[in-house]
């Protein structure tokens, strides 16, 4: 597959401290990449900063949550006819330097969706706090079991997608901790998912606000959502493909 137009989708909620740098880094890496920042109801200067740094900015009228924001980006990519999309978080934890690694399986045509995994290497470079590590391991095991495929990092939002992946997510994308559920979605629609090892950076600004109690709550909620996702009725993929 020849590399088509590439769009970088950056969801951001109150990230005025980091967003400018993220946009600059992506553009510095490859000036041919277009960047769209989805401002998820920020109350700070995220939108104007992103715009000033040369990104297209889609401003949601209110906060939709990460899933709704990311999906807006996929809809944008689909509408504008981009062949390939990459998704990076607006807080700067996803290093644009890893984009080449992420894009390789898409460009060679062996995957529809590529996820950057912090754990595929298992060199211990990334050590999240205990509560989160339990959650991450739990979902990795569960999702691997459900999808019959070894998945090591189900909560990573660092992804690259081809046209089929973009179309799927533009049409249907879950909302809370969407990456976990989306993995099941990808499996159900028989798209090819590949994980590549990447390094992620520490959050540039602020600590993740997820406490232990909340992690447990989210684990329960997302686990339930996973089983619902497995049991849900889906349109036959072939039929869908014919519609598009």
């Amino acid at each position, binding site marked *: 597959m020849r590399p088509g137009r590439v769009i970088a989708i950056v969801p951001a909620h109150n990230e005025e401290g980091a967003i400018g740098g993220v946009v600059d880094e992506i553009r510095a890496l490859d000036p041919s990449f277009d960047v769209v920042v989805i401002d998820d109801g920020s109350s700070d200067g995220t939108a104007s900063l992103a715009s000033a740094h040369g990104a297209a900015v889609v401003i949601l*009228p*209110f906060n*939709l949550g990460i899933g*709704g924001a990311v999906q*807006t980006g996929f809809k*944008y990519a689909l509408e504008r006819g981009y062949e390939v999309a990459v998704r990076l978080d607006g807080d700067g934890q996803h290093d644009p330097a890893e984009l080449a690694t992420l894009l390789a399986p898409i460009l060679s045509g062996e995957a529809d969706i590529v996820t950057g995994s912090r754990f595929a290497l298992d060199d211990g470079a990334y050590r999240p706090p205990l509560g989160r590590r339990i959650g991450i391991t739990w979902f990795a095991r569960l999702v691997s079991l459900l999808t019959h495929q070894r998945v090591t990092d189900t909560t990573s939002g660092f992804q690259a997608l081809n046209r089929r992946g973009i179309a799927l997510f533009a049409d249907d994308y879950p909302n809370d901790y969407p990456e976990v559920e989306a993995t099941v979605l990808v499996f159900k629609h028989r798209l090819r998912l590949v994980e590549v090892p990447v390094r992620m950076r520490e959050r540039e600004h602020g600590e993740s606000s997820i406490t232990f109690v909340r992690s447990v709550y989210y684990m329960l909620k997302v686990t339930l959502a996973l089983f619902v996702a497995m049991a849900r009725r889906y349109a036959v993929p072939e039929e869908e493909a014919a519609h598009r």
Partner: protein
Amino acid sequence: MTPVKISIAASVASLLLLLIVFELIRGRRLKERYALLWIVTGLVLLVLSAWRGGLNTIAGWMGVSTYPPAILFAVATLFVIIVLLYYSTVLSRLADQNTVLAQRVALLEQRLTEVDDGVGERALLGEAGAELRGEPG
């Protein structure tokens, strides 16, 4: 046997419910499709309240011999649960539609900004062009 007083009180309450629902529909504060379940609820409760023999029979089926009006509570609770469940589905649909609308609005707004910028640029270029083309002195 169901006490007559309870029968009357329950009938009045059911009638009141029906009356309020009708008033809300008349005032267009309640859409018919959402009112239908309430009307059915009111009618079923009214019938069971007024028709004491029927209530006793049903209570008999259920093995409730001591206090037939308990069946009234049970039926009322069942209908309230059905109405709530139905409203949860309505709410879920509205939430989904709300998300889609917000995304649509945001994407359109972005496109509009682009078009506006484009028009602005063309206007500027046009002016500059006219200046360049403008008759000398």
